[in-house]
Each structure stands twice: as structure tokens, then as C-alpha cells.
């Protein structure tokens, strides 16, 4: 079992942001966290990394407390949070994924450099290794961050809104890497507010908004009733069986 949350509440400084989380994730599965902005998606991802407080219930990652399992986890943050003026190249960013393996002051080894090249190659950016991170497009930057997480060879990969502001080419590149990862047994946890995408890529969906509203296969979770309760009454069923959300 990769993840097991049982009636868990998480938050910061003793204040709960997200309550009643009940979910589990096995190796090779993809779990999508769906919910509106401010629902607590990033908070839940940080809880898996042991960066938020568990205020109630159980939170286990690889059978241990979250903070003790960080070495098995990879994290892809939202690309918009990073300073595009920062003087680093794409390859330097990917190498950061190897820092824990390299250690504090030891020089980089050939295996680390090879891992960087391979990771960039997997996301289709081998030619951009020497380019400054900030000069890449939003989608390419997101792929570099994915490559950085891959370079650490994680067993559980956490992605915070990986498709936000990402062009179609990069989205396809990211999706194909994610499919390869699940096939090879890596577990994925990604947050998204794109419900159609969640339906397409995920084996499991966790619908949250301040608390968990539903957890299970996409077909059971992304129904009009569930969405209406989570989003507050703005979901409409279409004749073809799909559900759309309408802004209030």
C-alpha cells in the first residue's frame, strides 16, 4: 500500500484546511485530486510529503509517517510559483532532483549526469538542457520540473496542477510519461481542476472541497450529485451522460 489516509484532517498551525480524508493508493495506480480552487488539493499533497500537520486520523505513506517516506516521493510543484529570472539552466534544475543522492558536498558523478540527460530525454527536452529555465515556455518548464522529479526515481510521484497553463504539446508529453510511470509500477497523485482530464487519466478520483466528498473510480465519483455537493450546486447533467459545472 502506497498511501493510506483514514478519517484524516490536515492543516497548518492547528487549523484544519481539509477534513475527513479516507483514501488509499496502490503501486501503479493514478489518483486524481479534484476540487475547486482553495479546496485543499495542495494541502493534501503537502500532507503526503509531511509538510503539513496531521490534526486527526491516520496518514501513512509506504506504511510509515509521511515525513519518513520523503525519499521515495517525487514532487512536481506548480510552475507559476518559480522565478523565471532565476539564473539556472534546465539541466541544473533537473540535477536538483539528484542532490539528495549526491550528498551535500560530493562532486556530481557520471551516473547523476546520465540520469539528468535521460530524464530530460523522457520529457522530450534533451536539446534544451543548456537553456536557461526562465527562457522556456510554460509547458516546457513544467516538463523540466517533471524531469527533475523523475531524476530522483521516486516510487510515488506527486504533481500539483501539472496541466495548468500548459500547451497541448507539453500536455501530451507529460501524459505519455505519466502512463509509462504507472505501467512500470510508480504510483501517481495529481491535483487538477480539469474534471475531464481527471476522468481520462486517473484510476481513482478523490473529490474534495474543505472535506472529502467522494473517493473511488472516476465513473462513481464524477457524477452530477457528487459534484453538486462538492462544488455547491453548480453541476448540470447533459443528455449525453456528461456533467458540466457552471460558474455561479
Amino acid at each position: 500500500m502506497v498511501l493510506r489516509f483514514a478519517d484524516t484532517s490536515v492543516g497548518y498551525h492547528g487549523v484544519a484546511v481539509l477534513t475527513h480524508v479516507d483514501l488509499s493508493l496502490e503501486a501503479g495506480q493514478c489518483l486524481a485530486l479534484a476540487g475547486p480552487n482553495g479546496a485543499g488539493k495542495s494541502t493534501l499533497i503537502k500532507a503526503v510529503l509531511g509538510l503539513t500537520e496531521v490534526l486527526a486520523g491516520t496518514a501513512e505513506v509506504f506504511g510509515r509517517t509521511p515525513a519518513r517516506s520523503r525519499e521515495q516521493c517525487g514532487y512536481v510543484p506548480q510552475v507559476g510559483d518559480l522565478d523565471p529570472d532565476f539564473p539556472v539552466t534546465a539541466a541544473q534544475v533537473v540535477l536538483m532532483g539528484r542532490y539528495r543522492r549526491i550528498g551535500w558536498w560530493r562532486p556530481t558523478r557520471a551516473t547523476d549526469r546520465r540520469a539528468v540527460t535521460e530524464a530530460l530525454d523522457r520529457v522530450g527536452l534533451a536539446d534544451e538542457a543548456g537553456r536557461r529555465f526562465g527562457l522556456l515556455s510554460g509547458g516546457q518548464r513544467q516538463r523540466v520540473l517533471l524531469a527533475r522529479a523523475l531524476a530522483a526515481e521516486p516510487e510515488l510521484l506527486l504533481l500539483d496542477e501539472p496541466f495548468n497553463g500548459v500547451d497541448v504539446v507539453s500536455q501530451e508529453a507529460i501524459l505519455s510519461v505519466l502512463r509509462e510511470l504507472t505501467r512500470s509500477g510508480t504510483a501517481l497523485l495529481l491535483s487538477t481542476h480539469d474534471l475531464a482530464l481527471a476522468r481520462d487519466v486517473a484510476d481513482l478520483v478523490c473529490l474534495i472541497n474543505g472535506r472529502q466528498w467522494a473517493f473511488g473510480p472516476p465513473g462513481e465519483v464524477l457524477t452530477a450529485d457528487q459534484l453538486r455537493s462538492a462544488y455547491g450546486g453548480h453541476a448540470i447533467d447533459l443528455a449525453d451522460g456528461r456533467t458540466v459545472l457552471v460558474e455561479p
Partner: protein
Amino acid sequence: MILTVPFMARAMAELALLALICGPVGVFVFARRLSFVSDALTHTVFPGVVIGFLAGGVEGLVVGALVAGLLTAVVLTLLTRGGALSDDASTAVVLTAMFSIGVVLVSRQSSYTSDLTSFLFGRLLTVTPRQIAETAVLAAVILVMLAIAARPLLFRTFDPAAAAAAGYRTFWLDLWLNVIVALVVVAAVRAVGTILVVALLIIPAAAARLITARLAAMAVIGTVLILLAGYGGLWISWTASVDYGISLTSASAVVLLLVLAYLLLLPLGRLSTVRRSSLSHRGTPPAPKGSPHELVG
């Protein structure tokens, strides 16, 4: 050659040591946007310098600076905890409070004006061999501390969330860097004074960033700039006083030359910014490799 004059040679040796540490440390101060924090550090070291001087003379000065510097590093790390560098107000309160304490202490001295001047602006031309040796030791400690933590510091600076996710403790990394900056201030305080240290830390890195986007190159260019400005500043102050009878503080001349270098490089930085924004306005992908933009930006 001004360097055949022993006290000028000693001044240059001291500046060279400071260049060696301020170049690389400045890159992190600049990248971490810690300019204001370093400025605060230079001011809070001031009362330590005064107390150290009152208690133990010139020899006590470094000890006082060291204690005040390390104390401030801890306090500032606590104040700016959680990545909130926006806590400018509390930093400013610490800065002004400590600086005032220093001024109150020093104003009780009979040699008030001359003491104040030397604490604020340093005495570059009266550097002793012993001082150079002490600076060399501090420089070695600083460079080792920086080398040990360079990777985590870079990771934390670029992407604090991912660094924390990878298991790095950002609080300790922030404290580590603040202690490094405090040690730089301590190393430089007798030669260039508490006020001008910040110029050595911030201007070279900012100027280097205008012509390169490579971290290692920034560190090297920063060091070279301080060396050039150091020699130039010493030469100008020597020429001004010996040939023209104008008394000119050497440390100030060095800093003014650094500012001049920054101003001269500014158009290059502007050029790359304009190119970058015109590219994004046209909605085209970034310039291909080897384009003029890549060369400047």
C-alpha cells in the same frame, strides 16, 4: 605602482580576500533577494563593534561584531521564517533599533567623531598583517561553509517547496546562509566599515547578473569586479591625496567604482530585458541558441 607602498599592498591584500568571499556569497544574497536582510545585518553588527571596541579595543572589535552578527542571523531567520521575506517592517525595526544602540554607545566616547567614522566606513589603509591573517581565516571558513551547502542553498533559493519536499530543512538552510552573510560582514567590518560591506555583497552580483545568467560566472565576475574596483579605488584615493592633496576615503572610492561598473553594465541588462519582452509579446518561442539574446541574457 601604488602596491610597492606597504600599507597600500596590505589594503589590496585585504580587498582581494574580501573579493574572494563577496563574489560567491553575493550571488546567493542576490538570488535569495536577501539584500535588505544583509543591509540589516550590517547595521545590527554596528553596536557589537562598538561594545567590542569599548571592552577590548581594536582586538575586541571582531569578537563584538561576531557575537552581534551571529545573534542577528538567528533573529532575522526567525523573523523571516516560512519564506515570508515580506516581513520588512520587523527587519527594519531590528535594524534601526540596533543601529541606534550603537550610536548611543559610541557617542559616550570622547573621540566620538573619529570612532564613528572608522566603524561606519572602516580604515582600509591601516590594515595590519594580523588583520589580514584573521580575514584569511574567516574567508576560509566562509568558503567552506558555502561549498558544503551550495547545492541545498541553490535548491532552496530556486524552489523552496520542492526543496522541503526533498527533505531539506529550509529554516536551517536560511540560518546557514544568514550566518555566512554575518561572517562576511564581520570579516569586512574593520577594513570597509559596517555601511560599505553591503555594497561589496550586493553590487558585484547585481552587476554580474546584467551580463550573465550562469551562477558560477556570476560569482567569478563579481570577484573580478571587486578586485578591479579595489585596485582602481586605491589608485584614485592615492593619486587624489598624494598628487592633488585631496583627502578621499579609499573604501568609498572602491564602492563608487563598483556603482560605476553597475551603471555601465546596466544598458546591457536593459537590452536583454527588452529583447525578452518583445519576444514574449510576439508570442514566439524563445530565441534559438546562439542568438544575440542568448549572448547577453
